[in-house]
């Protein structure tokens, strides 16, 4: 039998067993301590495994990456170079290009997913086949970005003018008498970046829709009815009542989408690998790491990404605290 299978089974059974034994064992140990101290020791033993993993795989490497970004490329004897890697990032055309593209991702992916998600949530709320409609819009979220990339590679397929177009979009354009477009090979106007943003909109609209729809159902119908009785038309009801009530939810969905946009990697890596002016920060980092073997610069790129996300993290924590205080 495959030894990897045996290892996997051992891990699936063994790790939970060890963890359960750990909790039992520590409870025994805690009971040896003076009664007064027990409630102070016990919680730390319960969260210790989680803190260990978080420390080792998130906190420690983040600190190390920040330090590494201040050193030079050489693997064996990295020299301290201060902010040189960051200077390279700011003055490098490719990096600025990636920043610009990420800005496009942030603006357009967020606006379109939240906008269309809200529109769909409101529309399907009024039809009998709501569950079906939602499932269909939501479905792409379950598949990998690589699979989504493959799906859209066939949608965007491009053949030289004159040949029969096998890509769905170019065939549609062709039947309207318009020329084929090389969707994924067009740097001009950053068309290829927008083509990939469209793929992610297709994937993530369902996410926005589900959360907004949940909030929509939470709005008291009497409030809306009251507005209608007062003579407000549907548009006014939406603008003056529904939209403000959805505010906090839209903020939460938007922050998630902004973070997703900043971390964009899989789609770009699979479809263009940054060619045709589609580079993004996350892909740039992987390139510096593996194509150029420059861990200093790769670290600097990662830190830039982290810095972009910190304000959003702060916002999230504030939201979270406000929410906790009303619990």
């Amino acid at each position: 039998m495959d030894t990897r299978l045996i290892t996997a089974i051992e891990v699936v059974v063994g790790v939970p067993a060890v963890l359960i034994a750990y909790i039992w064992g520590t409870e025994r140990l805690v009971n040896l301590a003076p009664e007064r101290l027990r409630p102070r020791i016990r919680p730390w033993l319960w969260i210790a495994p989680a803190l260990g993993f978080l420390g080792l795989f998130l906190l420690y490497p983040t600190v190390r990456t920040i330090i590494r970004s201040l050193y030079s490329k050489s693997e064996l004897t990295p020299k301290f170079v201060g902010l040189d890697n960051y200077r390279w990032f700011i003055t490098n055309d490719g990096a600025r290009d990636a920043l610009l593209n990420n800005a496009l991702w942030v603006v357009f992916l967020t606006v379109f997913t939240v906008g269309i998600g809200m529109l769909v949530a409101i529309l399907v709320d009024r039809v009998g086949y709501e569950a079906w409609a939602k499932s269909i819009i939501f479905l792409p979220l379950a598949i990998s970005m690589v699979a989504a990339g493959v799906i859209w590679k066939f949608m965007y397929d491009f053949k030289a003018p004159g040949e029969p177009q096998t890509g769905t979009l170019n065939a549609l354009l062709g039947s309207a008498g318009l020329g084929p477009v090389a969707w994924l090979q067009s740097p001009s106007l950053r068309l290829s970046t927008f083509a990939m943003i469209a793929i992610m909109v297709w994937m993530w609209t369902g996410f926005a829709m589900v959360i907004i729809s949940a909030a929509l159902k939470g709005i008291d119908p009497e409030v809306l009815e009251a507005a209608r009785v007062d003579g407000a038309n549907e548009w006014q009801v939406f603008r003056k009542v529904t939209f403000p009530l959805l505010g906090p939810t839209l903020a939460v969905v938007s922050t998630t989408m902004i973070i997703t946009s900043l971390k964009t990697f899989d789609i770009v890596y699979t479809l263009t690998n940054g060619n045709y002016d589609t580079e993004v920060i996350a892909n740039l980092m992987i390139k510096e790491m593996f194509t150029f073997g420059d861990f200093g610069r790769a670290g600097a790129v990662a830190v830039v990404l982290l810095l972009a996300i910190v304000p959003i993290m702060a916002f999230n924590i504030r939201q979270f605290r406000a929410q906790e205080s009303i619990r």
Partner: protein
Amino acid sequence: MTTVAVPEAPSAPQMAARRPARPQRKFVLHLAVVVLMIIWLVPTVGLLVSSFRPQSKLSTTGWWTAFAPPYQFTLENYQQVINQNGIGQAFVNSLFIAIPATIIPIFVAAFAAYAFSWMEFWGRDVLFVVVVGLLVVPLQTTLIPILRLFAEWGLTGQFAAVWLAHTGYGLPFAVYLLRNFMGSLPKSVFESAALDGANHVVSFFRLAVPMSVPAFAALAIFQFLFVWNDLLVALIYIGLSNSDNLPMTAAMANLVNSLGGGWYLLGAAAFMSMALPLAVFFGLQRYFVRGIVGGAVKG
């Protein structure tokens, strides 16, 4: 991390037709919804049809021509993908990776979530906020040091590397989701158990765990899909040193990038990789939605 209430899944028609609308407005509404549904379905359906078409047809005609005679469909792409292009092995690898990487973090997170919910200790709230903050740390910032660490431990290329890494990366979300659920369980239940002499271990296994089954289900689905669909982590910790252990996503990415032959197999490969997520999605949609709405942010 959301302020909305936990909803039920997309459910039976709710309050259809809130108010009688004029017929033409109703028509526009239905038209808009149906058009959206079609737009969202076409890409997937197109690839599904393509995956059953012979190679010779794929490069010369669009997938929609398959619906006119002569109807030419074949299973050959799937056979080739499974046998020749290593996708079959990659599918098995994906399972090897995803199942332990789903189970381990759930156990680790459950203990921590219980402690955060039902034990008092100094620094508890601050610590929990730190965990929530870690939700958004980009994985990219952790790659270089962890890769070095794994290299020192001789783990690069091994499944164990991704099991450990996914446990770490999945924990903030797992702790957050479970703590929110466990924390909202009725306090009186735990108090009366304590009065009856139950210690924390007993109330964890007898009360907290059985009552939190929906949250565990949501978390398991979410973590499983996250790991199954992951490309980056597998690429970095496995791909560089041992391509035999690569999961579906990485094998597919290789197939896309290798411009030579094999591109006609992409459809079949993509559908094989989607089979499990789609089954999970259709079978357990209720929990999936709850997972998403219950913890909207994932790092």
